[in-house]
């Protein structure tokens, strides 16, 4: 019994290594197949990393719900300061900052392009501005109520609470995420078809061997095994190649990405690939390899019966 089991395991090991040997014997064809599988697996992974980063970035922006309160013309700095102090008392407000009209004008003057134009003005047309930062847990409804209250205030000209573009970006990213899923399913399907077809050709090439084996009493399992191992190897190498592609392309992108983040003042930390992504890519490679092989074997092996 133990010996039978031992022989069985040895047979598996032989099939496993034999399938690898068959691939090595036609290196170009094997490598092309592996490259196609690798690219097809890497593509959705890369897209998903991009969309995940985009989402994290947008999520960070959603928290920023600062709004600006502009005073009516003629409101004095003292009145504006009173308004600021009043706003500071509100429960939903975390901090406030007053930018006086003259400070704002100064800022414009320093601007290289607008500077000359602003310097030509005799009066200061700018209002005082109070930048209000709500607390993190402030609800949108409460903020809207606060805004409505401020609009009624005789000192206030305009309140700008603009988070629409953040929500739009988030919706676009949701769509992108869905697209990544659809692409992933299509590409995985394509890989199954590619492996299935490669193994179908393999079966055709080894037709004589299959026929003779069946004549000498080979079971379906015996005949099937080398092809399933071939699928296993394609999936494994395809997965490894996909991982290499991902690591290399992220490394190529890392420079520009860091520069971009620095330009936006840092704070955001991009995701690269983590262990779980790699494991997922690898596992999907294996599953896809085996299922592609299985689909070919199920359809084509039964059709080969010995002819004498």
């Amino acid at each position: 019994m133990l010996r039978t089991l031992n022989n069985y395991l040895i047979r598996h090991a032989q099939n496993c290594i034999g399938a690898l040997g068959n691939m090595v014997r036609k290196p170009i064809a094997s490598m092309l197949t592996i490259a196609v599988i690798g690219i097809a697996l890497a593509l959705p992974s890369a897209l998903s990393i991009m969309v995940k980063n985009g989402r994290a970035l947008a999520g960070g922006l959603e928290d920023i719900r600062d709004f600006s309160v502009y005073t009516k013309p003629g409101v004095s700095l003292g009145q504006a300061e009173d308004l600021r102090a009043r706003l500071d008392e509100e429960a939903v407000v975390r901090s406030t900052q007053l930018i006086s009209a003259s400070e704002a004008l100064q800022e414009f003057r320093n601007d290289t392009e607008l500077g000359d134009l602003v310097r030509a003005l005799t009066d200061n047309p700018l209002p005082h501005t109070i930048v209000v930062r709500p607390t993190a847990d402030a609800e949108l409804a409460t903020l809207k109520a606060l805004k409505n209250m401020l609009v009624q205030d005789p000192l206030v000209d305009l309140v700008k609470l603009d988070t629409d573009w953040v929500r739009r970006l988030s919706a676009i990213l949701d769509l992108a995420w869905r697209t990544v899923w659809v692409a992933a399913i299509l590409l995985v399907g394509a890989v199954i078809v590619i492996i299935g077809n490669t193994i179908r050709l393999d079966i055709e090439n080894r037709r004589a061997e299959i026929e003779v084996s069946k004549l000498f009493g080979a079971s379906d399992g015996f005949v099937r095994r080398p092809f399933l191992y071939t699928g296993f190897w394609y999936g494994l190498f395809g997965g490894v190649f996909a991982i290499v592609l991902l690591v290399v392309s992220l490394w190529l992108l890392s420079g520009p990405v860091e520069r971009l983040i620095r330009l936006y003042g840092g704070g955001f930390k991009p995701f690269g690939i983590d262990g779980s992504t790699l494991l997922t890519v690898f596992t999907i490679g294996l599953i896809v390899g085996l299922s592609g092989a299985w689909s070919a074997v199920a359809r084509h092996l039964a059709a080969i019966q010995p002819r004498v």
Partner: protein
Amino acid sequence: MIRFDKVTKRYDKGREALRNVSFDVDSGELIFLTGHSGAGKSTLLKLIALIERPTQGQVLVEGRNIGRLPQRRIPAHRQQIGMVFQDHKLLEDRSVFENIALPMIIAGYAQREIRGRVRAALDYVGLLDKEQHTPTMLSTGEQQRVGIARAIVARPKLLIADEPTGNLDPKLSLDIMNLFRRFNEVGVTMLIATHDLGLIEQLGGRRIVLENGEIKAD
């Protein structure tokens, strides 16, 4: 060991290859199956190996009605049988050794046992020095001897051969038949289909003569 009981085999096109054939084979017998080509010799052997199934009647091997054997039991049944073909059916991209080892690998023998027995089989057919050759490097007679070594290596109880000397000259044919006879002497049951009547005259033994799918003489 083998019993054919009123066996009829009709192919899809309606041609009757065997009609109402009955005979018994005892364990250890050597039987020559003769008749003109198309008389049903090959069909009869195919029924034993379950490459075909009977249309009517029963084929019993060791008391079991193999016509009813489910598909998944066919491999185990074939592992009991050694088969030799007119066109050898050797794998040209494999060495002589690997060709002969195939039935033992299928039956799941250990590597060491396979090596020993393949060598013994090669010795038996006189090709011990050719084990690393590929079949294409051998003559037709040598190829057929490799085919015989492959058929006997797993020590089957039954050996069937379909025109094993079909492509050989008389001298080589006799050599091949003598190989079979020596193997029969150690107790293996044999059915050999051949139309080479002159050869059978020399060898003697039981003969079943088929004509148009029926047994003409036994």
